[in-house]
């Protein structure tokens, strides 16, 4: 089997897991939630195998020196969904909040289906600029950071829905689907925890990128659009971290900042490559 066929099964798994998580909110059956988690774990394992297999495949092409499969848009999107699952599963395992899955799995599923349906999955050996171990360190840390922000964004959306509904219903607890949501306090805390994981990773990602740029081009910072956007993302989450300890900024405003932060993250990741010019052109 090729890595591509593994990734097809992974896409289906994430779709199934997403549907099951949503079904859990509707049925309130914890059996469904457990199944959703197991399907997600299965998908994650298959994806890990798939990425390993693709790594092996990079050695098999003519003249292929082999490289960590994170060098073009397709590979990075696949890796992004893998990191989302990694961070999500860790957070679910630690904080046992299954409802969050319904708001995070869609990101992983969207990423996988985009990669499988419309991105170029051909393996091409690396151009000289990308032949560096820094590529691996840089990409891994950045995407783990992005994934943590994706989880934070999912949690923030839940927070806004939950708080909005609670205000509608008066001061009482919201019923229905929302009863399975963690409390607003826990959601606010989870949002913070996810960003607390993501922020140092993003910082390391920016630093490894700067170190690599310095090693390859002799400048650690050149205000290239990708660099600048990563700094914008960093500024937003730094503002979030400071906002949270300021009176009047915790809760709703923090959740909104977290969502804006993730929107900026996605723009930094995709928008810059697709709309602006610069160094990160994914070799194309």
């Amino acid at each position, binding site marked *: 089997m090729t890595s591509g066929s593994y990734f097809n099964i992974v896409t289906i798994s994430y779709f199934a897991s997403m549907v099951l998580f949503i079904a859990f909110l509707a049925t309130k059956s914890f059996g469904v939630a457990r199944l959703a988690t197991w399907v997600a774990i299965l998908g994650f394992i298959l994806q890990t195998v798939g990425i390993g297999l693709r790594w092996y495949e990079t050695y098999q092409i*003519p*003249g292929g020196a082999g490289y960590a499969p994170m060098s073009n848009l397709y590979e990075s999107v696949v890796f992004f969904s893998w990191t989302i699952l990694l961070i999500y599963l860790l957070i679910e395992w630690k904080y046992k909040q299954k409802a969050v899955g319904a708001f995070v799995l869609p990101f992983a599923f969207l990423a996988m289906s985009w990669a499988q349906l419309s991105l170029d999955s051909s393996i*091409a*050996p690396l*151009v*000289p*600029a990308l*032949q*560096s171990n*820094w590529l691996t360190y840089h990409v891994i840390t950045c995407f783990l950071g992005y994934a943590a922000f994706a989880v934070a964004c999912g949690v923030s959306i839940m927070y806004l829905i939950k708080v909005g509904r609670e205000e509608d219903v008066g001061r009482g607890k919201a019923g229905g689907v929302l009863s399975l949501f963690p409390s607003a306090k826990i959601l606010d*805390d989870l949002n913070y925890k996810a960003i*607390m994981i993501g*922020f*140092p990773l993003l*910082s*390391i990602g920016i*630093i490894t990128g*700067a*170190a690599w740029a*310095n*090693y*390859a*081009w*002799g*400048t*650690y*910072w050149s*205000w290239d*659009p990708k660099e*600048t*956007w990563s*700094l*914008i993302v960093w*500024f*937003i989450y*730094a*503002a979030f971290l*400071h*906002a949270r*300890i*300021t009176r009047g*900024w915790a809760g709703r405003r923090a959740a909104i900042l977290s969502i804006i932060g993730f929107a*900026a993250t996605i723009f930094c990741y995709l928008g*810059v490559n697709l709309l*602006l*010019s610069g160094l990160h052109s994914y070799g194309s």
Partner: protein
Amino acid sequence: MTQKKRGFLMALWDFFCSLKLSIFTLIMLAVTSIIGTVLQQNQTKEQYLHVFSPKTYAILDKMQMFDMYHSTWFIGLLMLFCVNLICCSIKRLPRVWKIVTKPTLVPSQAVLDAFPNTVERTVRGSLSEIRPRMEVFVKDNFAATRSTETDDGVYLYAEKNKYARFGVYVTHMSILIIFTGAIIGNVFGYKAYVNIPEGGSIDKVWLRSGEPVDLGFKVTCEAFSVSYYPDSQRPKEYKSILTVEEDGVVVVDKRPIIVNDPMTHNGITFYQSNFGPAGSEIMTVKAKLRGEDKAQVYTLRRGEKAQLPDGTSITAADFTTSYRNFGPAARLNVRKQGEDEISVIVFKNFPEFDQQRKGTYLFSLEDFTQRYYTGLQATKDPGVWVVWLGCTLMVIGSLIAFFVSHQRMWVVLREKDGKVQVRLVGTAHRNQPAYELYFDKLKEAFNKHLA
């Protein structure tokens, strides 16, 4: 100083220390940074006038939008950010320093009551008996204690990870260190370029402004090569072989440099940046008389002419390393005596190609050598190590600030009518929910220990 003036200065000080200013500056930096990613920076005036009307251009130019990351207002915003960092550290650090170096061994009742994690129990026995038991309990479950005897009773104090309090300040300081490194690099460093043809040497490099910088040593490019992946136009490696001489003595001998593997000498780093053809190519052309085995070989530079035995002249008119996917090709101008000049294209990869022309001579391109120049970037940045120091501190500082918490614990023992009242109070400076869980378990152990 008048009361009013002092009040104003205090308000100003508080403003520069405030978190609100931090949030405002961070958001402003985020929003304004977008401009330079949308509006192309550092283009020429002509390029901008292609897009903007002269009036708009003048306004944007006045606002320094075409080099916004070095504009007065953006640097000003960064400076405001630094002032905010410095002020809030000056304001908060002394208090934190005191907490770390001079812990409150005997807190007041009000201070103790303010901490939410507390448990109390009264047990039979004397102070001299219960005190060592509690010292052992805290040491086993948390950390070694310091005891203070007062008229009010005995106070045990223990703490863990007190230095975690500095995490935030290390992170803040790291940003200032990074800026310092950047300034050092800007003032004492430079970024320059140089092209060296294969076999050539240089002892100067050129700044973007066109100004030369003396290196103090001589760099020779021994060779340059480009290699491609098999069956494709995808470059695999750009490589220059450099030799460095100081006062006629070779100090670096034939060091290969490739992209992602620069060479540093005397604080100046050379990066493989680009390349191009240097001078004309040398082509080796074979001319064979049809039907005979004997062939003549000519080595020609571009534009050079050779005479064949029968008086036919050939000129190496043109050359390319890649002619429509057919690989290296040369164009020869051939003039047979008394005839018009004709053009013949010969390919290195297809030596038989000229057969189909059915001429007297059969030409082929045996080989070619292309001399290249290598384009190097030469950078001197004495501030870069300061920047890396700042980055390292930032990572360490933020990990400590996020994941390590300063935990403190007090035990107050009061003897009364043959009984001892034991009160245990604990607090963590961050991550309260996790600490509450920890303290709940500790409570159980506490009750068991004293039962």
